[in-house]
């Protein structure tokens, strides 16, 4: 399943699963992630600091005091990872308010897609998405794939501050800004839900790779009265 293994600097192994982005390749990445995580927990592999899955790559960062690229690479090549289709994913529904004060980029998306706000919302909300990965900022889920008719590029000039809770689209993906952050995605609404809870030490991230996520619209009144 791994097409190529190389070093990323002197303290990371870079596993390339291919150049496409799809659920099949991504679930291969997640299977390797789960397998290596297990070995770390049971101390069967030494010196691993972080394992970072993404759409089609897996980066394994290690402690250069304890191990080397070749040692970690050999361990990974020796793994016999079978892609078992996971059935234990969660289905999560996320409330989102798409009033213009929250949906900052409807004009821009309309211009690019030639669709009305209602059409954009119909195409983006009424679909179940797959979570490819979480990251960039804590707990931010990268979900896909959105309908081909509403795909657009990142803003030419990214915002310095995207409000916390913003739901954004770009290319084939949807995400949720779990914290205020710089960012260039096209914002269509805002969720009052806590997607990342730094006080929950066991399960801080609501959405995990492999989970299925859908959005439903709420009014501004419901948004303001939202009880977490």
């Amino acid at each position, binding site marked *: 399943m791994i097409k190529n293994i190389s070093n*990323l*600097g002197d*303290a990371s192994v870079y596993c390339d699963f291919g150049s496409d982005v799809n659920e099949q390749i991504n679930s291969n990445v997640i299977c390797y992630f789960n397998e290596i995580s297990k070995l770390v927990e049971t101390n069967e592999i030494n010196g691993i600091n972080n394992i*970072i899955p993404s759409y089609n790559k897996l980066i394994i960062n290690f402690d250069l005091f304890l191990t080397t690229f070749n040692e970690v690479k050999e361990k990974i090549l020796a793994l016999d990872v079978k892609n078992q289709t996971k059935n234990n994913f969660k289905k999560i529904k996320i409330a989102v308010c798409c009033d213009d004060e929250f949906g900052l980029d409807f004009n821009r998306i309309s211009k690019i897609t030639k669709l009305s706000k209602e059409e954009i919302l119909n195409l983006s909300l009424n679909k179940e998405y797959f979570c490819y990965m979480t990251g960039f*900022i804590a707990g931010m889920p990268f979900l896909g794939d959105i309908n081909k008719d509403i795909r657009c590029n990142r803003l030419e000039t990214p915002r310095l501050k995207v409000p916390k809770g913003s739901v954004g689209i770009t290319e084939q993906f949807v995400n949720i800004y779990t914290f205020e952050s710089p960012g260039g995605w096209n914002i269509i609404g805002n969720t009052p839900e806590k997607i990342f809870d730094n006080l929950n030490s066991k399960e801080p991230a609501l959405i995990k790779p492999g989970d299925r996520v859908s959005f439903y619209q709420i009014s501004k009144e419901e948004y303001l009265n939202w009880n977490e």
Partner: protein
Amino acid sequence: MSNTYFEVLRAGVNTTIQDIGRNHMYHLGITISGAIDQRNYVLSNKLVNNSLNEAVIEFAYQGPLLKLKNGSINFCITGDVIFKIIKKDGSIEDGTCYESYTLEDEEQLDIISTKNTAYGYLSVSNGFKLQKIWNSYSINTKANIGPNNGKKYSLKDKILINNQDLALNKKNKINYNESSDNLIRIIKGTNFNYFSKKSQDSFFNNEFSVTKDADRMGIRLTGPKLENIVNTNIKSEGLVRGVIQVPADGNPIIMLSDHGTIGGYPKIGVVISADLDQVGQFTPGSKIRFKEVSLAEAQNIFKAYTIDTNKYLNENN
């Protein structure tokens, strides 16, 4: 029970608690954090006889003004830092880095500024009274994780200190000679071939300047524009400390301890582990050059750097 603490009389620019960093959380988007300059971090702990992974205060440029309450402590400051001790009678003692001092109840520690570097470290004997979050004391201000609700310190905050043994006043010091250099060694990145031959050459042959956009997340450089001839975006993938990303504008960015865990810009190179402490200390306006080394060379340079650090750690025994 003693209840010793620092009262913050001036917060400084970016005063946080840091340690070795927070691991095993990248897959959730939680970055490593930790002291930018890991060598100066461990040396500060060693000089007050702490275990090397104890929490310390990291400050940037202008440091904090701290008043000690309810007890006496030993402390040490490492880095390239100007600081003073203000006694109860108002007299002032100039401090020297890499030396331990005793600070008495009600005395003040004025960390005025770093000199030619960005970060300095303050350790106290027996460490700070804090709780680990996900196995680390480090404050991650982007996701509000860690002590002080994950925020940098501000005026009037209290920073609690662990109970002290009575063996104060034992002076520790080392003769630290920072051999700083503007040559940063890198290993070619996974997208090195995205750049034109001319830009590949100018990456190694030209000087780059550190811009004012330099913080714990990363440092942005300017220099010859690096021309991407393949694609200015890649499918977002993991990042680690030291990765040099090049966005569409052609200006490289070096990832430091608070970097985003994934990114979508091509990676032209990765700073070797042995040079990360030095890269993090560059201030705006610094001129730097890049030199390519092989993986084997990087591993050997890291071994030599570790031996050098250990030499300082053992100097005081």
